[in-house]
């Protein structure tokens, strides 16, 4: 007399999850709608318009800040990825003890609170009198991008085993050829995933850029933070929405890469 039973069905659970998704997306939707307001006041709706987006794009300070952000994020991503590829291979091939020790050290930028990383880096740069402008921020960003760039590569190294590399070695392929012809192509999707993650994390950073940077190195989040501090205006909304849209594009790119990887 057993009735058909779906063990995973729970009444109301779907509605609850829908509410949580609403909680996650409604604030972003509100911002987006506000940013199309054509009026001069945030709170008074004055017809839909693109005028604040035009104002943002024409704003020279925002252009400079966006350029700084992209230079820093691009350089930090390339550096962090180049450092993370050999490190991921080394960590997975190390003895258990060494792997755990180095793995925890490389996770430090994730474990230490961001504000602490920011002020200690500031203290360090000030003490050794390192004033290289944007390069100071590139260094600081590279450090915290490394663990993000490394994560997907490590997972991939663990998953792919050593069979193919061993086969190539048995056929007398020199080490560099094994790396270029076997290891690198197998790792490529994970390298891209890690690079996108590092890029997003670098663009996202506010605290470290604000404290370590100086007047000439204002990044986009630092500039927009200053705008918010001066007052909530429709221009802030439009700038934030542009950042939002750009993040979503990167997220979509990341997802399509990870799907392609899992299909292989």
């Amino acid at each position, binding site marked *: 007399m057993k009735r058909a039973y779906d*063990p*995973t069905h*729970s009444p109301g*659970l779907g509605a*609850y*999850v829908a509410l*949580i998704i609403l909680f*996650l997306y409604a*604030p*972003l939707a*509100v911002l987006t709608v*506000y940013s199309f307001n054509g009026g001069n006041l*945030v*709170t008074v709706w004055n017809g839909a318009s693109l005028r604040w987006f035009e104002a943002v794009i024409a704003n020279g300070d925002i252009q400079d800040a966006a350029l700084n952000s992209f230079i820093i994020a691009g350089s930090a991503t390339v550096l962090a990825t180049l450092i*993370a590829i*050999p*490190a991921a291979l*080394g*960590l997975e*091939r*190390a003895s258990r003890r*060494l792997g755990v020790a*180095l793995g925890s*050290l490389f996770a*430090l*930028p994730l474990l*230490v*609170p*961001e*504000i*602490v*990383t*920011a*002020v*200690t*880096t500031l*203290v360090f740069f000030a003490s050794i009198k390192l004033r290289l402008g944007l390069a100071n921020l590139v*260094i600081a960003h*590279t450090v915290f991008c*490394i663990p993000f760039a490394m994560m997907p590569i490590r997972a991939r190294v663990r998953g792919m085993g050593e069979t193919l590399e061993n086969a190539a070695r048995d056929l007398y392929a020199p*080490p560099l050829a*094994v790396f270029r012809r076997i290891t690198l192509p197998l790792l490529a999707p994970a390298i891209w995933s890690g690079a996108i993650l590092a890029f997003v994390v670098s*663009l*996202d950073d*506010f*605290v470290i850029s604000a*404290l370590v940077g100086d007047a000439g190195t204002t990044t986009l*989040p630092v500039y927009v*933070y200053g705008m*918010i501090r001066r007052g*909530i205006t429709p221009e*802030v*909304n439009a700038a*934030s929405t542009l*950042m*939002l849209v750009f*993040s*979503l594009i990167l*997220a979509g790119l*990341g997802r399509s890469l990870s799907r392609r990887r899992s299909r292989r």
Partner: protein
Amino acid sequence: MTQRASPLLLTSPALAVIGVFMLVPLGYGLAYSLLTASPYGGAELPLSTEGYVQILFQRDFDDSLYFSPTYLLILLRSIVLAGLTSVISAALGLPVAWFIASRPARWQGALLFVVTLPFWVNSLVRTYCWVLLLRDQGLINMALQGAGLTHEPLPLMYNDGATLVGLVYNFLPFMVLPIYAALERLDPRLIEAAHDLYATRRRAFLRIVLPLAVPGMRAGALMVFAPALGYFLVPDLLGGGRSLMIGNLIQSAFTSGRNWPFGAALSTLVTAGVLVFLVIAARRGRVEATP
């Protein structure tokens, strides 16, 4: 026979960069916490424990110390808010993770993407959205007044509640992912068996799903508590002066406060606290994982 690059050689660039630009700065932070503040920022000799003393005490005009709980309260608030953020995120995230884990495999990836997508959005933008909702002329107050429910704006912003909402909003995905990872391995036959033995849904959830979700919640708490403790943007934009957290205190010591040793002492304290917390949590997790 081929020689292979040694693990130490392969990891040496990462070791050098993280060693020089992360580990050494942490050492500098520790050193600065034991110096004397320079009047225009920075720090100088002689050595002093003043940075640490200032966390609990203030100096009277005659240079005598008296206990001042201001900073201690900010430290406690940070710990309480970060703890509440972990607990609330776990409570909100558990049903979501369970829902995703119990869907057909082809839906799980898409659902996880939907839940984690907001995490990709710039954290400044994510926090700013809540300013638009909570401030006096914000959407919630406009809606309440428009509906005639209130006549004056409710003080939704610049309090601990606003900070907490912002923190939960920022960290919820970090909790859903590890709980999902724990529940994904759950064998649905366990629940079928419970049902065959006349367990109610509630009982099956409490006795089977919940215990299996605990390791995931613990992993999630590691990813939420420590970053939430030192978070800057949310208490800064939503909490304001009335809901300061450690992150704001450290930031102001290095900027407007011009008291680097005090800020460095706070940083050292927070870092030590977080690392001890993580080591204890990792130990406990390992002990429980080995039956």
